Structure formats: structure tokens, C-alpha cells
């Protein structure tokens, strides 16, 4: 049975701004986009990664541009060639206080868990696993839980699997919730990250010897921290993030791509890929027919045609500025507006209500001094490394687009207010 919304009530569930596409929804609702770097990333990973080179990639895009969905799609496409370990750091730690130690620990935990889940480690040589186990127990006993922590060593390789699973769960819980545990771990990792790398390399090699697939980490959450912290992580701890022998894709805050030290930041990474927003126009303001068509398709593949007036769809696409998350949220809002006024389809007034809601949001966020900057960027469409521009990119009032060179424009929802206030 298809999952496409056939009623407005369905639309409220189908257009869910909380979660990226995954599983069946990914199959049914995914729409490729012009300028999508996914294919290039795939070729890069297949071309170099599969030859044994531990590729390290950076992946950026606006908040809400669809990065998570694209990474889910990439994982789906590469799942038979790579041993994919997806890590969403937001699920483990507070990303606003993210450190490189958090990233490494999150990766190590996810690798153990994934290897255990897929039986890749369980079928590996028992001795190697016993060593990993012994080290893990002594680490937990000596560094985290104290002497009260006492687990008997596992009796058999089968039991190892269970035990590893149990302590990873315990560690994840402890690690995510306790500041004290995090500090202890951070100090330990600082002093021992070569060991941690070696352990990750060991597991990766066990996976390779068992299933003949290289490990590919997909790390989400590294784009959600603030710019200063992201700089510290990617600039000052490049070695820690790149020295192990597994391929990685790190999400990366888009604002950082326009910082003065971007080149220095990325020198140790193989490539930086950016997920562009869908365009409504070209830089010269000529309509981008292909971009608009893709945005329509995103709505049309999830929503039965009779549920939205054609004019309303045109206005919806124009208003979202090419940001997929906004397109999803505004469709959901419009469905709520339509249903609450007793209508059976989304009409232009519902889209106007959704626009007004988004506009209020921008007005709430923007400071008076930001309006002139937005007006200037609307005129010259030029991106720069100025902090005020980075801030506007961060709050989505300024959107990055790309043809050949990247350019920017003011979000269409807030543009009338910008023009009015800077007249």
C-alpha cells in the first residue's frame, strides 16, 4: 500500500518536519535534485575508498536542506560495498558542547555496536575479541565506574557478543548523561587516542577479514555545533579525526565553508561536498524551471493532486526558498490550516497563513542591524566570510545557492519585510 497522503489528515503525518526520510519513506518519497553531490560522493568513495584508501569527506548544507535524507540515501546505495556505521552524535551527547573526544567515542561505540549487531565481530577470532573485552572492562573499571564495577570475564566467544553489547549500552547511557563521565573519558582519550585509533582499526580489520567490506562512518551532528566550536574541532584536532584507517563522512556547518580559514581547516580532508538548496531562480533572477519542478515533485510525490490547488502549490514552492525542510513544514502547516477551517484541500489562503507564520518567525529572530545586510546581499548576491553573513546563513534568512559558483539571496518569505524596512 502506498504511503502518499490521500486526505489532509494523512498529509499532517506524511509531511513531518521532525524526521528525515528513512526506510520505506525513503524509497517512496525521495526526489533527487539538480546539483546533488551524492553521485560524486558515491563515485569518490567507490573509486578511492574501495581501493583501501581511508577517505575522509566533509559534507555541508543549510539546516533543513535535506542532508540527513541524502546521507540515508547514500548509505542505502553503498550498503553492499561498505560496512556502514551511521553515528548521530545528537543522540549521544549535547552537540552544543561537542568535543573531538565526543566524536571519537561516539564512533568507537557505534562501530562496536554495529559490528556486534551484524555478527561481523562474533564470527571473528575469539582471541582478538577477548582482548578487546579485557581492555574494555579494565578501562571501565579503572577510569569510569571505579573499583565497584565488577563484571566477570565472558566464558565463551558467544558470551562476548552479549557482554560487549551490554557495556556499550551502559557506556552510551553513562557517557551521554554524566558530565563527570564525559570529562574522565575526554582526559583518557586525550592521553590515549592512538590506542583508541588502534582499537577502531583492529575492529575494522576484523570486519574486513570477515565480510570483505571496508568500514564507512557517516557522522551526523558535527554540523550542529556553533562555529567557534566547529573550528576548534576541525582545525585543532584534524589528526584525531582523520588518522584511523576507515572512511568517514563528517557533516560540517555550512557557515564554516565561508570562514577565512576554511582552506586550512579542510587540508587534511580529501574533499568537501556541499548540498545546495534547490533554486527558484538563477543568479541573474531568471526563473530556474528545473529547480521549481523538483520542488513541486517533492510535494506531489507525497500528496494526492486533489489535496492542493495548483495556484497554492506554485505559491508554496516560491515561498520555501528551496529549503526542503521549509517545504515540508509549510505543507504540513497549510494542511492544518485547511483542515481547521473545514476545507478538503489546501488553497492559496492556507499557504498565505503558513507564509505569515514563517515570516513571524524570521521577524522574531532578526535584529534591526541585520536588515541592511540582507538588503545588500539581495542586491549583490555575493557570499563572503564576514561573521554577519555567516550568522544570516545560520538562521536561514540568507540562503546559499550554487550554479557554478555559489551565490546567495534573501529568503523569499522575509524579503518583503527586508525591502520595507530598508526602503
Amino acid at each position, binding site marked *: 500500500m502506498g504511503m502518499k497522503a490521500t486526505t489532509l*489528515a494523512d498529509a*499532517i*503525518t506524511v509531511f*513531518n*518536519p*521532525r*524526521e528525515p526520510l528513512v526506510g520505506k519513506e525513503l524509497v517512496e518519497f525521495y526526489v533527487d535534485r539538480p546539483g546533488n553531490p551524492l553521485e560524486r560522493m558515491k563515485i569518490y568513495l567507490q573509486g578511492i575508498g574501495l581501493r583501501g584508501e581511508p577517505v575522509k569527506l566533509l559534507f555541508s548544507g543549510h*539546516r*533543513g536542506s535535506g542532508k540527513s535524507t541524502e546521507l540515508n540515501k547514500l548509505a542505502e546505495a553503498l550498503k553492499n560495498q561498505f560496512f556502514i556505521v551511521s553515528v*548521530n552524535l*545528537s*543522540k549521544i*551527547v*549535547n*552537540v*552544543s*558542547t561537542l568535543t573531538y573526544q565526543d566524536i571519537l567515542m561516539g564512533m568507537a561505540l557505534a562501530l562496536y555496536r554495529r559490528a556486534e549487531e551484524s555478527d561481523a565481530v562474533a564470527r571473528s577470532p575469539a582471541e582478538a575479541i577477548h582482548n578487546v573485552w579485557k581492555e574494555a572492562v579494565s578501562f571501565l573499571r579503572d577510569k569510569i565506574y571505579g573499583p565497584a564495577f565488577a563484571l566477570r570475564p565472558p566464558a565463551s566467544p558467544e558470551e562476548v557478543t552479549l557482554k560487549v553489547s551490554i557495556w556499550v549500552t551502559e557506556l552510551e547511557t553513562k557517557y551521554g548523561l554524566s558530565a563527570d563521565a564525559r570529562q574522565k573519558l575526554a582526559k583518557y582519550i586525550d592521553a590515549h587516542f592512538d590506542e583508541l585509533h588502534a582499537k577502531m582499526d583492529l575492529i575494522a580489520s576484523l570486519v574486513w577479514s570477515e565480510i570483505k567490506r571496508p568500514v564507512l562512518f557517516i557522522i551526523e551532528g558535527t554540523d*550542529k555545533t556553533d562555529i567557534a566550536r566547529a573550528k576548534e574541532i576541525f582545525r585543532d584536532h584534524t589528526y584525531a579525526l582523520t588518522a584511523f584507517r576507515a572512511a568517514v563522512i563528517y557533516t560540517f556547518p555550512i557557515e564554516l565553508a565561508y570562514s577565512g580559514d576554511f582552506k586550512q581547516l579542510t587540508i587534511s580532508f580529501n574533499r568537501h561536498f556541499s548540498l545546495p538548496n534547490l533554486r527558484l531562480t538563477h543568479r541573474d533572477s531568471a526563473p530556474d524551471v528545473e529547480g521549481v519542478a523538483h520542488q513541486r515533485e517533492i510535494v506531489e510525490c507525497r500528496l494526492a493532486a486533489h489535496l492542493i490547488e495548483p495556484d497554492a502549490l506554485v505559491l508554496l514552492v516560491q515561498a520555501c526558498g528551496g529549503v526542503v*525542510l521549509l517545504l515540508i*513544514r509549510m505543507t*504540513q*502547516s497549510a494542511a*492544518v*490550516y485547511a*483542515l*481547521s*477551517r*473545514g476545507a478538503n484541500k489546501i488553497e492559496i489562503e492556507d499557504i498565505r497563513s503558513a507564509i505569515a*507564520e514563517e515570516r*513571524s*518567525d524570521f521577524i*522574531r*529572530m532578526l535584529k534591526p542591524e541585520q536588515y541592511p545586510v540582507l538588503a545588500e546581499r539581495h542586491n549583490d548576491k555575493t557570499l563572503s566570510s564576514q561573521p554577519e553573513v555567516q550568522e544570516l546563513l*545560520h*538562521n*536561514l534568512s540568507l540562503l546559499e545557492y550554487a550554479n557554478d559558483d555559489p551565490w546567495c539571496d534573501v529568503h523569499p518569505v522575509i524579503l518583503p519585510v527586508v525591502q520595507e524596512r530598508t526602503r
Partner: protein
Amino acid sequence: MSMPAALPDNLPEYLARPDLAELSVLLRHAQHGAFAFALYNTVAVRDQVVAALRILVAPLPVYEFTLTSQQRNPLSYLEKLPAETRRQRAVVFIYDLDRANTPDQPDTTWGYLDAQREALIEYPHGLVFWLTEQGATDAAQYAPNVWSRKSGVFDFKIESLPVLSQARADWSGRAVEIEKAEDLERLTRLYLGLLEEYQAEANTPQALIADLHGKVAFLLFRSYRHHEAVNHLNLQLEFARQSGNTAIEAQALLNMGDVQNFRDERDAALESYSQALGLFRAVGARLGEANVFLALGDIKRATGDIAGAEMDFENALKTYQTIGDRYSQGLAYYRIGDCAADRLEHEAALAFYQKAASAWTEIGLSDLVEQILATRIAEAMKRP
């Protein structure tokens, strides 16, 4: 806008607005859950909006969770839900995200909220975060990852000053009534919010602030949050003295005595009651005076001075009879009965318990008869 029949037709302006219908539509139909932000500028209206939404989202279960400076993690709301229903659809109202921050840690709750986004998404709950306008601005800035995944912002602010004043006055002017256990948390949240709103305004009468501190203190005392209750009682005393309102000052001293008595600080309690008695007498507040006698009688009986206690209870009873307060007469009667029972005069005790029972039954408080008197009556009847 269509409304279920359960809501009355003559809804006030702050309920008869599209945002109420839109929020209820979202909560009813978002099968996988949603993040919604609801804006308010007075807790008086917030409470009524929530009451209306409870009706509109039925049969979905509704839970309420208040963040505090001790509990700033929004994910803790899960502890309020029965474990077996945590994975089922529900609507959860989360209050005081902005108030739970302290001046030394102004962003903490936002950090928690943002950090818990992925965990919050795991559950099919419609989460409604109640925020002030400033709170919404802060949420957008400091919790951008949750803010960006919201399904909507619903506005329940009141723009009209007279309506705003009336909505607040409806609550600040009434006596605190706790009918069921859940009322305690709801009313504490409400009166704390009301107090904050009035304090933020210039020209709020100090007597009103004093009265609200007293109400908050009473609720906190009933929630066993004695330390906080005492803080509010001290503030009630301070504002009552500043405003020259002797009746409120006397009430604050009586309340303070109750807290001190509960904490076994009997000397301090006696001192507070004695001061309260003097002030109530000075302003001719007979009910207050009787209430002090009742409290003094409780202390005396607890220390074994049965005769002294009985005298105080009888004094209280006379005044309650004079002013025709049947509920308080019941309180005095059963305490006099307790004194008789202490002296093993069970027949006399039974007579007073029965007087208390008829006073309460007369005014429809049979549940109190059941809770407080039934055992006493049974016990007295068993004795020779």
C-alpha cells in the same frame, strides 16, 4: 472553525481564535508526534487554553510537565507517563522552559532541549512547549535544531489590556481550591506565573503581591516544599508590612506558624500565632482570629495540654458559629471530639464527631466525612 460540542458556545476571545483549532488539528492528526510552540502572555489564559485543548484532542491522553531550576531536562516528562504507554500517542504540555533558567545559567534549558531533539523524536507525542514571546526568541536562537523542526507556533497572547487584566484578576481574586492531587502542580505553576507577571508590571499594589506570595506559599506547603514556602511567606510578610495591610500580615504570620508547627518548631510557631492573633483582633477579622485559636489548640493538644487545647477549639467554634462558617465548625467539632477521646470520654467524642459529620454533610462535603471522620466514629462506637 468547527468546535466539538463539549466546548461552550460563548468562548472568550482568547479561545475563540483559529490557533486553538489549528493546534488541536495538528495534535490530533500528527501520528508520529510533533513539536509545537504555544505563545502566551498570561498564565491565567494558558490554563484555560490547555483545559479547552484537553477536550479537543480527546481521546488522546494529555500529560503536563513543568520544568524547574532543579529539573531542566525536557525529556524527563517521560517519567510522568506510565511505562507501558510511553510508546503510544499522547499530548504533552511542557511548561516553564524559560522560567527554569537561572540568571547564572540563562541558556541551560535551551541547551537541554536542543540536545534532546533526537531522543524526543523517538516518541509519538505531540509536545507543546509553552513560551513567552521572549522565550520564543530565545528558543529560536539557543535551541535552533528543535526550533527548525517545529510544526508550528500558535499564538494565545492577549493584546487587549482590559481582557488581560480581567483574566488575571479572575485567578488572583479567588481563593485557592485544591480538589484533586493534580491541582497542586497546576495551581502552583499558575500562581507562580501570575506572581511573576504582576511583579513585572509597575504599579501593581503591594497588597496583591503579598496575597499571591501567600497563595504560592500555601501551595508549596501542601506540596511539602517547605523551604520555598517559607521564602514566599517571608516575602508575603514583607509586602504586607510595606503596604500597611494588617489583615494580610496577620494571615502571613498564621501561615508561617503552620509551616513552623509542621516542622516541629513549636516555639517559633507559637510566637507567629500570637502575633497573628493580635493583628487579626486589631482589624476585627473574626475568621482569622478563630483560625489562630484552632492552630493554637492543635499545638497544645500535640504537647499534651488537652484542657488548654479544648479551650482554644471552643473559642474557635464560637466564632465560626457567629459568622456561620459550617465548614470550619466541622473542623472545630471534631477537634473537640479528639480532646474528649484523649480523656477516654468516647461517648462525648462520638457526639462531637457526629456534629462535625452533619455540618459537613449539610454543605456537601461527605467525602471529608468519609476521609476524616468515619474511622474516628467507628473507633468511638467500639469503646465503652
